Protein backbone atom coordinates (compact mmCIF):
# COMPACT_ATOMS: atom_id res chain seq x y z
CA UNK A 1 0.00 0.00 0.00
CA UNK A 2 1.31 3.45 -0.90
CA UNK A 3 0.05 6.75 0.52
CA UNK A 4 1.09 10.36 0.14
CA UNK A 5 1.38 11.12 3.85
CA UNK A 6 1.77 8.83 6.85
CA UNK A 7 1.37 10.44 10.27
CA UNK A 8 2.67 8.62 13.34
CA UNK A 9 0.74 9.42 16.53
CA UNK A 10 -2.85 10.61 17.05
CA UNK A 11 -2.29 13.22 19.75
CA UNK A 12 -3.05 16.91 19.17
CA UNK A 13 -0.28 17.35 16.57
CA UNK A 14 -1.12 14.17 14.64
CA UNK A 15 -4.88 14.73 14.71
CA UNK A 16 -4.63 18.39 13.62
CA UNK A 17 -2.17 17.51 10.86
CA UNK A 18 -4.34 14.64 9.63
CA UNK A 19 -7.54 16.69 9.54
CA UNK A 20 -5.90 19.52 7.57
CA UNK A 21 -4.05 17.12 5.25
CA UNK A 22 -7.39 15.42 4.55
CA UNK A 23 -9.02 18.76 3.77
CA UNK A 24 -6.21 19.63 1.37
CA UNK A 25 -6.78 16.37 -0.50
CA UNK A 26 -3.70 14.45 0.63
CA UNK A 27 -4.07 10.69 0.67
CA UNK A 28 -3.29 10.32 4.39
CA UNK A 29 -2.92 7.48 6.86
CA UNK A 30 -2.79 8.18 10.62
CA UNK A 31 -1.14 5.43 12.67
CA UNK A 32 -1.60 5.20 16.41
CA UNK A 33 -0.83 2.67 19.09
CA UNK A 34 -3.83 3.59 21.25
CA UNK A 35 -7.38 2.31 20.79
CA UNK A 36 -8.82 5.81 20.31
CA UNK A 37 -7.58 9.23 19.22
CA UNK A 38 -6.20 11.81 21.66
CA UNK A 39 -2.60 10.90 22.41
CA UNK A 40 -1.61 11.10 26.08
CA UNK A 41 -2.99 14.56 26.77
CA UNK A 42 -6.47 13.81 25.40
CA UNK A 43 -6.35 10.09 26.09
CA UNK A 44 -9.78 8.39 26.03
CA UNK A 45 -11.30 11.81 25.24
CA UNK A 46 -14.21 10.29 23.33
CA UNK A 47 -15.40 8.48 26.48
CA UNK A 48 -15.12 11.52 28.74
CA UNK A 49 -18.23 12.51 30.72
CA UNK A 50 -19.10 16.22 30.49
CA UNK A 51 -18.55 16.57 34.26
CA UNK A 52 -15.22 14.73 34.23
CA UNK A 53 -12.85 15.66 37.08
CA UNK A 54 -10.21 16.04 34.36
CA UNK A 55 -11.63 19.48 33.64
CA UNK A 56 -12.15 21.87 30.71
CA UNK A 57 -8.60 21.78 29.31
CA UNK A 58 -8.99 18.05 28.79
CA UNK A 59 -12.42 18.40 27.19
CA UNK A 60 -10.85 20.91 24.77
CA UNK A 61 -9.50 17.89 22.88
CA UNK A 62 -12.98 16.72 21.87
CA UNK A 63 -13.50 18.84 18.73
CA UNK A 64 -10.18 17.68 17.31
CA UNK A 65 -11.04 13.99 17.79
CA UNK A 66 -14.49 14.60 16.29
CA UNK A 67 -12.95 16.36 13.28
CA UNK A 68 -10.64 13.40 12.76
CA UNK A 69 -13.57 10.96 12.84
CA UNK A 70 -15.45 13.13 10.32
CA UNK A 71 -12.44 13.35 7.96
CA UNK A 72 -11.57 11.04 5.08
CA UNK A 73 -8.25 10.19 6.72
CA UNK A 74 -7.41 6.49 6.99
CA UNK A 75 -7.14 6.45 10.81
CA UNK A 76 -5.66 3.22 12.16
CA UNK A 77 -5.85 2.72 15.92
CA UNK A 78 -4.18 -0.20 17.76
CA UNK A 79 -1.34 -0.03 15.27
CA UNK A 80 2.26 -0.23 16.39
CA UNK A 81 5.05 1.12 14.24
CA UNK A 82 7.98 -1.21 14.83
CA UNK A 83 10.33 -0.11 12.10
CA UNK A 84 10.61 2.66 9.54
CA UNK A 85 13.00 2.91 6.63
CA UNK A 86 14.28 6.38 5.74
CA UNK A 87 12.89 5.78 2.22
CA UNK A 88 9.36 5.91 3.64
CA UNK A 89 8.45 2.27 4.29
CA UNK A 90 6.65 1.82 7.60
CA UNK A 91 6.46 -1.59 9.25
CA UNK A 92 3.28 -1.99 11.27
CA UNK A 93 1.75 -4.51 13.61
CA UNK A 94 -1.94 -4.80 14.38
CA UNK A 95 -3.57 -7.73 16.19
CA UNK A 96 -0.28 -9.64 15.85
CA UNK A 97 -0.19 -9.29 12.06
CA UNK A 98 2.44 -7.25 10.29
CA UNK A 99 2.15 -5.19 7.15
CA UNK A 100 3.99 -2.38 5.43
CA UNK A 101 2.82 0.99 4.20
CA UNK A 102 4.96 3.14 1.96
CA UNK A 103 4.55 6.89 2.31
CA UNK A 104 5.94 9.63 0.10
CA UNK A 105 6.16 11.76 3.24
CA UNK A 106 6.20 10.92 6.94
CA UNK A 107 5.17 13.14 9.82
CA UNK A 108 6.32 11.98 13.23
CA UNK A 109 3.95 13.25 15.94
CA UNK A 110 5.12 11.02 18.75
CA UNK A 111 4.71 13.57 21.53
CA UNK A 112 6.45 13.70 24.86
CA UNK A 113 7.36 11.39 27.70
CA UNK A 114 7.77 12.28 31.34
CA UNK A 115 11.38 12.88 32.31
CA UNK A 116 12.65 9.91 34.33
CA UNK A 117 12.93 10.72 38.05
CA UNK A 118 15.63 8.39 39.41
CA UNK A 119 15.34 8.74 43.19
CA UNK A 120 16.04 6.07 45.81
CA UNK A 121 13.05 3.71 45.85
CA UNK A 122 11.55 4.76 42.52
CA UNK A 123 11.15 1.11 41.49
CA UNK A 124 9.01 0.28 44.57
CA UNK A 125 5.36 -0.57 43.89
CA UNK A 126 3.38 2.52 44.86
CA UNK A 127 5.70 4.87 42.97
CA UNK A 128 4.59 5.94 39.51
CA UNK A 129 4.64 9.09 37.46
CA UNK A 130 1.98 11.74 37.96
CA UNK A 131 1.08 11.21 34.31
CA UNK A 132 0.52 7.49 34.96
CA UNK A 133 -2.00 8.28 37.71
CA UNK A 134 -3.70 10.70 35.34
CA UNK A 135 -3.86 8.04 32.62
CA UNK A 136 -5.57 5.66 35.07
CA UNK A 137 -8.16 8.34 35.80
CA UNK A 138 -8.70 9.03 32.08
CA UNK A 139 -8.90 5.47 30.87
CA UNK A 140 -10.25 3.44 33.80
CA UNK A 141 -11.83 5.89 36.29
CA UNK A 142 -9.28 4.72 38.86
CA UNK A 143 -7.91 6.90 41.63
CA UNK A 144 -5.13 6.08 44.10
CA UNK A 145 -6.44 5.08 47.50
CA UNK A 146 -4.82 5.95 50.81
CA UNK A 147 -2.19 8.62 51.36
CA UNK A 148 -1.05 10.17 48.08
CA UNK A 149 2.02 12.41 47.83
CA UNK A 150 2.96 14.25 44.64
CA UNK A 151 6.58 15.26 44.21
CA UNK A 152 8.48 17.19 41.58
CA UNK A 153 7.58 20.24 39.58
CA UNK A 154 6.04 21.50 36.39
CA UNK A 155 2.55 22.37 35.17
CA UNK A 156 1.41 18.74 34.91
CA UNK A 157 2.14 18.09 38.60
CA UNK A 158 -0.32 20.81 39.60
CA UNK A 159 -2.85 19.76 36.99
CA UNK A 160 -2.85 16.16 38.23
CA UNK A 161 -3.11 17.35 41.85
CA UNK A 162 -6.18 19.43 40.95
CA UNK A 163 -7.75 16.54 39.06
CA UNK A 164 -7.21 14.19 42.01
CA UNK A 165 -8.83 16.75 44.33
CA UNK A 166 -11.86 16.91 42.00
CA UNK A 167 -11.95 13.12 41.72
CA UNK A 168 -12.15 12.79 45.49
CA UNK A 169 -8.62 11.51 46.06
CA UNK A 170 -7.22 14.39 48.08
CA UNK A 171 -3.38 14.30 48.10
CA UNK A 172 -1.79 14.66 51.55
CA UNK A 173 1.00 16.90 50.24
CA UNK A 174 2.84 18.29 47.23
CA UNK A 175 6.61 18.34 47.53
CA UNK A 176 7.87 20.86 44.98
CA UNK A 177 11.46 20.27 43.96
CA UNK A 178 12.08 23.38 41.83
CA UNK A 179 15.31 24.83 43.23
CA UNK A 180 14.55 28.18 44.87
CA UNK A 181 17.15 29.77 42.51
CA UNK A 182 14.78 28.94 39.65
CA UNK A 183 12.40 31.66 40.87
CA UNK A 184 15.20 34.20 40.50
CA UNK A 185 16.19 32.94 37.04
CA UNK A 186 12.57 32.96 35.89
CA UNK A 187 12.27 36.56 37.10
CA UNK A 188 14.49 37.56 34.15
CA UNK A 189 11.68 36.47 31.85
CA UNK A 190 8.86 38.46 33.41
CA UNK A 191 8.41 39.96 29.94
CA UNK A 192 6.77 36.67 28.88
CA UNK A 193 4.08 36.98 31.52
CA UNK A 194 1.87 39.47 29.68
CA UNK A 195 1.85 37.72 26.27
CA UNK A 196 1.56 34.40 28.10
CA UNK A 197 -1.13 35.62 30.51
CA UNK A 198 -3.80 33.13 29.43
CA UNK A 199 -1.59 30.14 30.25
CA UNK A 200 -0.28 31.86 33.37
CA UNK A 201 -3.80 32.52 34.68
CA UNK A 202 -4.62 28.87 34.15
CA UNK A 203 -1.53 27.79 36.11
CA UNK A 204 -2.18 30.17 38.98
CA UNK A 205 -5.78 28.91 39.06
CA UNK A 206 -4.50 25.35 39.57
CA UNK A 207 -2.26 26.35 42.46
CA UNK A 208 -5.13 28.33 44.05
CA UNK A 209 -7.49 25.34 43.73
CA UNK A 210 -4.94 23.06 45.40
CA UNK A 211 -4.50 25.49 48.28
CA UNK A 212 -8.27 25.94 48.65
CA UNK A 213 -8.62 22.18 48.96
CA UNK A 214 -6.19 22.35 51.88
CA UNK A 215 -3.35 20.41 50.25
CA UNK A 216 -0.06 21.69 51.68
CA UNK A 217 2.62 22.65 49.14
CA UNK A 218 6.23 22.51 50.36
CA UNK A 219 8.75 24.34 48.20
CA UNK A 220 12.45 23.79 47.59
CA UNK A 221 12.28 20.14 48.71
CA UNK A 222 15.51 18.13 48.23
CA UNK A 223 16.65 14.55 48.67
CA UNK A 224 13.31 12.76 48.17
CA UNK A 225 13.34 9.00 48.81
CA UNK A 226 10.56 6.43 48.63
CA UNK A 227 10.90 4.05 51.57
CA UNK A 228 9.21 0.71 52.15
CA UNK A 229 9.86 -3.00 52.13
CA UNK A 230 7.46 -4.38 49.51
CA UNK A 231 5.54 -1.20 48.70
CA UNK A 232 5.96 2.46 49.58
CA UNK A 233 5.04 3.33 53.14
CA UNK A 234 7.00 6.51 53.76
CA UNK A 235 8.50 9.44 51.87
CA UNK A 236 11.67 11.00 53.29
CA UNK A 237 13.36 14.22 52.28
CA UNK A 238 15.98 16.55 53.76
CA UNK A 239 14.35 17.73 56.95
CA UNK A 240 11.06 15.83 56.74
CA UNK A 241 9.09 12.66 56.27
CA UNK A 242 5.50 11.63 55.61
CA UNK A 243 3.63 8.35 55.74
CA UNK A 244 2.38 7.56 52.22
CA UNK A 245 0.96 4.74 50.10
CA UNK A 246 1.49 6.43 46.75
CA UNK A 247 4.26 8.66 45.44
CA UNK A 248 3.49 10.34 42.12
CA UNK A 249 6.63 11.77 40.53
CA UNK A 250 6.93 14.41 37.83
CA UNK A 251 9.87 16.52 36.67
CA UNK A 252 8.46 17.84 33.42
CA UNK A 253 8.26 16.26 29.99
CA UNK A 254 10.84 15.73 27.24
CA UNK A 255 10.41 14.89 23.54
CA UNK A 256 9.80 11.24 22.71
CA UNK A 257 12.63 10.79 20.21
CA UNK A 258 12.88 7.00 20.04
CA UNK A 259 11.85 6.86 16.36
CA UNK A 260 13.64 10.02 15.25
CA UNK A 261 16.84 8.67 16.84
CA UNK A 262 16.39 5.28 15.19
CA UNK A 263 16.09 7.11 11.85
CA UNK A 264 19.37 8.85 12.71
CA UNK A 265 17.87 12.26 12.07
CA UNK A 266 20.05 15.14 13.20
CA UNK A 267 19.32 16.02 16.84
CA UNK A 268 20.26 18.99 18.99
CA UNK A 269 20.71 19.32 22.73
CA UNK A 270 18.34 21.94 24.13
CA UNK A 271 20.21 23.55 27.01
CA UNK A 272 17.11 25.40 28.25
CA UNK A 273 14.72 22.44 28.35
CA UNK A 274 17.60 20.03 29.13
CA UNK A 275 16.65 17.46 26.50
CA UNK A 276 17.47 16.28 23.00
CA UNK A 277 15.19 17.21 20.13
CA UNK A 278 15.35 16.68 16.37
CA UNK A 279 16.71 19.66 14.43
CA UNK A 280 13.74 21.19 12.58
CA UNK A 281 13.07 24.07 10.25
CA UNK A 282 10.07 26.40 10.66
CA UNK A 283 7.76 23.79 9.05
CA UNK A 284 8.98 20.85 11.10
CA UNK A 285 11.22 19.49 8.34
CA UNK A 286 13.98 17.23 9.72
CA UNK A 287 17.43 16.49 8.29
CA UNK A 288 15.77 14.00 5.89
CA UNK A 289 13.80 15.62 3.06
CA UNK A 290 10.76 13.30 3.31
CA UNK A 291 10.38 13.31 7.10
CA UNK A 292 8.96 16.02 9.36
CA UNK A 293 8.19 16.26 13.08
CA UNK A 294 5.29 18.11 14.73
CA UNK A 295 4.21 18.61 18.32
CA UNK A 296 6.12 18.05 21.54
CA UNK A 297 8.30 15.40 19.85
CA UNK A 298 10.12 18.36 18.29
CA UNK A 299 10.47 20.37 21.52
CA UNK A 300 8.12 20.93 24.45
CA UNK A 301 5.48 23.62 23.94
CA UNK A 302 2.19 22.01 25.03
CA UNK A 303 -0.95 20.62 23.42
CA UNK A 304 -2.28 23.79 21.77
CA UNK A 305 1.10 24.54 20.20
CA UNK A 306 1.31 20.88 19.11
CA UNK A 307 -1.91 21.16 17.10
CA UNK A 308 -0.58 24.33 15.47
CA UNK A 309 2.77 22.81 14.46
CA UNK A 310 0.80 19.81 13.17
CA UNK A 311 -1.11 22.16 10.85
CA UNK A 312 2.09 23.85 9.67
CA UNK A 313 3.59 20.46 8.82
CA UNK A 314 0.43 19.47 6.95
CA UNK A 315 0.61 22.66 4.85
CA UNK A 316 4.25 22.00 4.04
CA UNK A 317 3.45 18.40 3.10
CA UNK A 318 0.68 19.67 0.80
CA UNK A 319 3.15 21.96 -0.94
CA UNK A 320 5.77 19.26 -1.18
CA UNK A 321 3.26 16.81 -2.69
CA UNK A 322 1.97 19.38 -5.18
CA UNK A 323 -1.52 19.99 -3.72
CA UNK A 324 -1.01 23.70 -3.03
CA UNK A 325 1.45 26.37 -4.13
CA UNK A 326 3.96 28.18 -1.99
CA UNK A 327 1.89 31.36 -1.81
CA UNK A 328 -1.13 29.45 -0.50
CA UNK A 329 0.98 27.57 2.04
CA UNK A 330 2.45 30.80 3.37
CA UNK A 331 -0.88 32.62 3.46
CA UNK A 332 -2.58 29.80 5.34
CA UNK A 333 0.37 29.57 7.73
CA UNK A 334 0.28 33.22 8.78
CA UNK A 335 -2.58 33.04 11.35
CA UNK A 336 -1.23 29.70 12.60
CA UNK A 337 2.19 31.24 13.26
CA UNK A 338 0.60 34.17 15.09
CA UNK A 339 -1.31 31.75 17.35
CA UNK A 340 1.86 29.71 17.85
CA UNK A 341 3.77 32.78 19.01
CA UNK A 342 1.06 33.40 21.63
CA UNK A 343 1.19 29.77 22.80
CA UNK A 344 4.97 29.83 23.11
CA UNK A 345 5.14 33.21 24.85
CA UNK A 346 5.19 31.85 28.39
CA UNK A 347 7.71 29.07 27.60
CA UNK A 348 10.93 30.97 28.40
CA UNK A 349 9.51 31.74 31.85
CA UNK A 350 8.20 28.20 32.47
CA UNK A 351 11.40 26.57 31.21
CA UNK A 352 13.45 28.49 33.79
CA UNK A 353 10.97 28.14 36.63
CA UNK A 354 10.69 24.39 36.17
CA UNK A 355 14.24 23.59 35.12
CA UNK A 356 15.05 20.28 36.78
CA UNK A 357 17.65 20.39 39.52
CA UNK A 358 21.07 18.82 39.06
CA UNK A 359 20.05 16.00 41.40
CA UNK A 360 17.30 14.94 38.94
CA UNK A 361 19.69 14.94 35.98
CA UNK A 362 22.65 13.32 37.79
CA UNK A 363 21.48 11.29 40.81
CA UNK A 364 23.93 11.55 43.70
CA UNK A 365 23.44 8.16 45.39
CA UNK A 366 25.26 5.25 43.77
CA UNK A 367 22.64 2.71 44.87
CA UNK A 368 19.80 4.25 42.82
CA UNK A 369 18.63 2.03 39.96
CA UNK A 370 19.13 3.94 36.71
CA UNK A 371 18.15 1.19 34.25
CA UNK A 372 14.90 -0.26 35.55
CA UNK A 373 14.90 -3.09 32.98
CA UNK A 374 18.39 -4.50 33.54
CA UNK A 375 18.62 -3.24 37.13
CA UNK A 376 21.83 -1.30 36.60
CA UNK A 377 22.68 1.20 39.33
CA UNK A 378 23.97 4.74 39.10
CA UNK A 379 27.19 3.51 40.73
CA UNK A 380 27.74 0.86 38.05
CA UNK A 381 27.24 3.50 35.34
CA UNK A 382 29.66 5.85 37.07
CA UNK A 383 32.28 3.08 37.33
CA UNK A 384 31.89 2.16 33.65
CA UNK A 385 32.25 5.82 32.69
CA UNK A 386 35.42 6.07 34.79
CA UNK A 387 36.72 2.90 33.14
CA UNK A 388 36.51 4.77 29.87
CA UNK A 389 32.99 4.45 28.42
CA UNK A 390 32.66 7.67 26.46
CA UNK A 391 29.01 7.49 25.43
CA UNK A 392 25.72 5.70 26.08
CA UNK A 393 26.24 3.09 23.33
CA UNK A 394 29.62 2.04 24.64
CA UNK A 395 28.35 2.03 28.20
CA UNK A 396 25.58 -0.30 27.09
CA UNK A 397 28.19 -2.90 26.17
CA UNK A 398 29.95 -2.41 29.53
CA UNK A 399 26.87 -2.78 31.75
CA UNK A 400 23.78 -3.99 29.76
CA UNK A 401 22.24 -0.65 30.71
CA UNK A 402 19.71 0.20 28.01
CA UNK A 403 19.63 -3.35 26.62
CA UNK A 404 16.36 -4.30 28.29
CA UNK A 405 12.88 -4.15 26.80
CA UNK A 406 12.48 -0.36 27.13
CA UNK A 407 15.53 0.05 24.88
CA UNK A 408 16.86 2.95 26.89
CA UNK A 409 13.72 5.06 26.77
CA UNK A 410 13.86 5.54 30.54
CA UNK A 411 17.59 5.35 31.36
CA UNK A 412 18.86 7.22 28.26
CA UNK A 413 18.75 10.73 29.71
CA UNK A 414 20.16 9.56 33.07
CA UNK A 415 23.05 7.62 31.52
CA UNK A 416 24.11 10.50 29.28
CA UNK A 417 24.04 12.97 32.16
CA UNK A 418 26.14 10.70 34.41
CA UNK A 419 28.75 10.10 31.68
CA UNK A 420 28.91 13.84 31.01
CA UNK A 421 29.36 14.48 34.72
CA UNK A 422 32.16 11.91 35.11
CA UNK A 423 34.07 13.21 32.09
CA UNK A 424 33.38 16.87 32.87
CA UNK A 425 31.85 17.43 29.43
CA UNK A 426 28.58 18.95 28.28
CA UNK A 427 25.77 16.41 27.61
CA UNK A 428 25.65 17.73 24.04
CA UNK A 429 29.04 16.05 23.44
CA UNK A 430 28.03 12.72 25.00
CA UNK A 431 25.24 11.85 22.59
CA UNK A 432 22.36 9.39 22.85
CA UNK A 433 21.58 5.72 22.49
CA UNK A 434 21.07 4.53 18.95
CA UNK A 435 17.71 2.69 19.15
CA UNK A 436 17.00 -0.06 16.64
CA UNK A 437 14.04 -2.00 15.31
CA UNK A 438 11.80 -3.50 16.46
CA UNK A 439 10.76 -0.41 18.42
CA UNK A 440 8.23 -2.52 20.33
CA UNK A 441 8.20 -6.28 21.03
CA UNK A 442 6.55 -8.21 18.21
CA UNK A 443 6.06 -11.94 17.97
CA UNK A 444 8.09 -14.06 15.59
CA UNK A 445 4.75 -14.96 14.01
CA UNK A 446 3.97 -11.32 13.27
CA UNK A 447 7.40 -10.96 11.70
CA UNK A 448 7.11 -14.17 9.68
CA UNK A 449 3.82 -13.30 7.99
CA UNK A 450 5.23 -10.08 6.61
CA UNK A 451 5.04 -9.95 2.86
CA UNK A 452 7.68 -7.79 1.26
CA UNK A 453 7.53 -8.36 -2.49
CA UNK A 454 10.35 -5.90 -3.23
CA UNK A 455 12.60 -7.61 -0.75
CA UNK A 456 11.92 -11.05 -2.23
CA UNK A 457 12.65 -9.89 -5.78
CA UNK A 458 15.72 -7.99 -4.58
CA UNK A 459 17.15 -11.09 -3.01
CA UNK A 460 16.43 -13.09 -6.14
CA UNK A 461 18.14 -10.63 -8.46
CA UNK A 462 21.21 -10.48 -6.22
CA UNK A 463 21.59 -14.26 -6.11
CA UNK A 464 24.57 -15.21 -8.26
CA UNK A 465 23.55 -17.63 -11.02
Amino acid at each position, binding site marked *: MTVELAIVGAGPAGMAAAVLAGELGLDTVLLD*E*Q*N*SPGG*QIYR*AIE*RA*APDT*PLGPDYLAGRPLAAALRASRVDYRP*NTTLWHVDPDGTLFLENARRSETVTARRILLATGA*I*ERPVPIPG*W*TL*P*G*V*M*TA*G*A*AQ*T*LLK*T*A*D*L*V*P*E*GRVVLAGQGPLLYLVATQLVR*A*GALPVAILETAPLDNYLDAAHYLGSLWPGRRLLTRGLGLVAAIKRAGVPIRRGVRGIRAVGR*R*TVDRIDWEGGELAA*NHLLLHEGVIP*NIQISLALQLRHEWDETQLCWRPALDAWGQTSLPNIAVAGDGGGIAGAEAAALTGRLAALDAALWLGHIGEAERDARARPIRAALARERALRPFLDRLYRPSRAVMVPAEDEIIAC*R*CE*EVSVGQIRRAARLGATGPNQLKAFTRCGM*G*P*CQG*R*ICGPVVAAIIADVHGKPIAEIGTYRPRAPF*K*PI*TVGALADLEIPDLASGIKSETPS
Partner: protein
Amino acid sequence: MFRRRSETRRPTVSVTVEGRPIAVPVGASAAAAVLAAGFNSIRETAGGSERMPYCMMGICFDCLAEIDDVPNRQSCMVEVQEGMRICRQVGARRIHPAAG
Protein backbone atom coordinates in the same frame (compact mmCIF):
# COMPACT_ATOMS: atom_id res chain seq x y z
CA MET B 1 -4.22 0.36 45.94
CA PHE B 2 -6.49 2.02 43.42
CA ARG B 3 -10.26 2.26 43.57
CA ARG B 4 -12.91 3.01 40.99
CA ARG B 5 -14.62 6.33 41.44
CA SER B 6 -18.08 5.68 42.81
CA GLU B 7 -19.63 8.33 40.52
CA THR B 8 -18.71 6.43 37.39
CA ARG B 9 -21.34 4.54 35.42
CA ARG B 10 -19.22 3.28 32.57
CA PRO B 11 -20.00 -0.23 31.28
CA THR B 12 -17.55 -2.91 32.33
CA VAL B 13 -16.02 -6.13 31.04
CA SER B 14 -14.93 -9.12 33.12
CA VAL B 15 -11.33 -10.25 33.10
CA THR B 16 -9.25 -12.38 35.44
CA VAL B 17 -6.03 -11.31 37.11
CA GLU B 18 -4.06 -14.31 38.39
CA GLY B 19 -7.30 -16.26 38.11
CA ARG B 20 -9.29 -13.78 40.21
CA PRO B 21 -12.27 -12.24 38.35
CA ILE B 22 -12.64 -8.45 38.24
CA ALA B 23 -14.91 -6.04 36.37
CA VAL B 24 -13.11 -3.12 34.73
CA PRO B 25 -14.42 -0.27 32.57
CA VAL B 26 -14.56 -0.81 28.82
CA GLY B 27 -11.52 0.81 27.22
CA ALA B 28 -9.27 0.32 30.26
CA SER B 29 -5.90 -1.38 29.93
CA ALA B 30 -4.86 -4.77 31.30
CA ALA B 31 -2.43 -2.91 33.58
CA ALA B 32 -5.34 -0.89 35.00
CA ALA B 33 -7.14 -4.20 35.70
CA VAL B 34 -4.17 -5.41 37.76
CA LEU B 35 -4.14 -2.17 39.77
CA ALA B 36 -7.93 -2.24 40.23
CA ALA B 37 -7.71 -5.84 41.46
CA GLY B 38 -5.49 -4.66 44.30
CA PHE B 39 -2.28 -6.42 43.34
CA ASN B 40 0.96 -4.90 44.58
CA SER B 41 3.08 -6.36 41.82
CA ILE B 42 2.57 -6.99 38.13
CA ARG B 43 5.93 -8.52 37.41
CA GLU B 44 9.02 -9.73 39.16
CA THR B 45 12.34 -8.79 37.57
CA ALA B 46 14.96 -11.41 36.78
CA GLY B 47 16.69 -10.10 39.93
CA GLY B 48 13.57 -10.88 41.99
CA SER B 49 12.25 -7.40 42.75
CA GLU B 50 8.55 -6.63 42.45
CA ARG B 51 7.37 -3.99 39.99
CA MET B 52 4.23 -2.10 39.16
CA PRO B 53 3.54 0.05 36.10
CA TYR B 54 5.57 3.27 36.23
CA CYS B 55 4.54 5.29 33.14
CA MET B 56 1.23 3.79 31.91
CA MET B 57 2.00 5.01 28.38
CA GLY B 58 4.12 2.34 26.78
CA ILE B 59 7.56 3.72 27.64
CA CYS B 60 8.90 1.98 30.77
CA PHE B 61 8.03 -1.68 30.10
CA ASP B 62 7.65 -2.26 33.83
CA CYS B 63 4.09 -3.52 33.24
CA LEU B 64 5.17 -6.55 31.19
CA ALA B 65 2.68 -9.33 31.85
CA GLU B 66 1.36 -12.55 30.40
CA ILE B 67 -1.92 -11.89 28.65
CA ASP B 68 -3.98 -14.76 27.22
CA ASP B 69 -0.85 -16.93 27.42
CA VAL B 70 1.38 -14.53 25.49
CA PRO B 71 4.27 -13.35 27.69
CA ASN B 72 6.12 -10.01 27.55
CA ARG B 73 3.10 -7.90 26.63
CA GLN B 74 3.00 -4.24 27.58
CA SER B 75 -0.14 -4.51 29.67
CA CYS B 76 -0.66 -0.73 29.76
CA MET B 77 -1.06 -0.81 25.96
CA VAL B 78 -3.48 -3.75 25.80
CA GLU B 79 -7.20 -2.97 26.02
CA VAL B 80 -9.23 -5.31 28.22
CA GLN B 81 -11.59 -7.72 26.44
CA GLU B 82 -14.30 -9.91 27.94
CA GLY B 83 -12.69 -13.05 29.39
CA MET B 84 -9.11 -11.82 29.08
CA ARG B 85 -6.66 -13.72 31.30
CA ILE B 86 -3.94 -11.55 32.79
CA CYS B 87 -1.07 -13.10 34.75
CA ARG B 88 1.97 -11.63 36.45
CA GLN B 89 5.25 -12.19 34.68
CA VAL B 90 7.75 -13.72 37.06
CA GLY B 91 11.41 -13.58 36.11
CA ALA B 92 12.51 -13.51 32.48
CA ARG B 93 9.77 -14.18 29.92
CA ARG B 94 9.32 -17.68 28.59
CA ILE B 95 10.47 -18.11 25.01
CA HIS B 96 7.47 -20.23 24.04
CA PRO B 97 4.25 -20.40 26.06
CA ALA B 98 4.19 -24.20 25.81
CA ALA B 99 7.78 -24.52 27.03
CA GLY B 100 6.72 -23.67 30.61
